[in-house]
């Protein structure tokens, strides 16, 4: 189902290799065609993109396809105007992926 692109942290991301995910994160370093971000559980992911990244804030949500356990190809980005409480975000991410709740939140 291409409509589903779950929010993940670095621990959960490997379950979605080949699929689209959303990663709420903090931007750490930027190069011409990659960005290294810190996920809500403190892990680091490499985000690859071409052209103008469109990343203008330090807290963003990266939407992309999972290439491997620590790499994602960017398809879109939401730039947040204010700081995101990544600790709170991580708790929510863990909750929605909990088998007890996954089928209520998702389909």
């Amino acid at each position, binding site marked *: 189902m291409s409509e589903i692109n779950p929010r993940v942290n670095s621990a959960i991301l490997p379950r979605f290799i080949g699929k689209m995910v959303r990663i709420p994160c903090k931007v750490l370093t930027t190069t011409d065609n990659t960005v290294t971000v810190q996920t809500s559980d403190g892990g680091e992911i490499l985000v690859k993109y071409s052209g103008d990244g469109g990343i203008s804030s330090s807290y963003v949500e990266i939407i992309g396809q999972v290439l491997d356990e620590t790499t994602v190809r960017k398809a879109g980005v939401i730039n947040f105007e204010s700081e995101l409480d990544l600790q709170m975000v991580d708790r929510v991410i863990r909750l929605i992926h909990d088998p007890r*709740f996954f089928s209520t939140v998702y389909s």
Partner: protein
Amino acid sequence: MQRTELSHSVRPLTLAQVNKAHQAHTDAEWTLEGNEIGQVTIVGHVVNITEQATNVLYTLEDGTGKVEARRWKEQSSEEDAEKWGDIQVNQVIRATGHIKAFGNRKYVNAINIRPSEDPHEIYFHMMEALTVSLSLQNGPVRGPSGNASAYTAQSSGMANDDMAEYRHLPPLQREIIKVLLAQPEHDEGGVHVGVVAKAVQKQGGVTGTAISEALDALMDAGQIFTTSDDAHFQVSR
């Protein structure tokens, strides 16, 4: 066609849940897992905006699914731009309205759409949707002190059928009845007015006079009676 109180409620849903909702036939109520849905409130990322002759469609994604929120256009295009112009692609918005089907497509006919400015809002919304769904499934949440949470105020009213007959009473009188009913049943001596006063005053700002008057009113109405002496009360059952 009978509609329950739920038809006047606003239910927070994830987009996957909106897509799971179903309608027995046109004009029937929408339900999700057996519960009727009134209005819904959704929060999603605008991935596309399609402008049509009379309405505008916002394609929303929230990670769980995809839903279109639809709104009618204003009379003039200036009015339209002024009122709705700040909603753009790649923004997160909150929309509130009714689920409607048109052919085999489902929409949320949005009465209200606003940008979601706080990045935490979508997380709050997911948790709210989950909490409400689980409360409807499993019953109200009980905290360690036995108090129901704010989200279960309605269902705890249904669970406590004891209090149903007292719903017409003013709040203080209702509170007193609740305290009397909460006391152990084998206490046939009735409940001392001091105990009632202490429990009721936890609500804050209740005077001794108000309590006296409420007790008198309840006695006049025959709801309570005195037992061992004038200071002990029992609910008439």
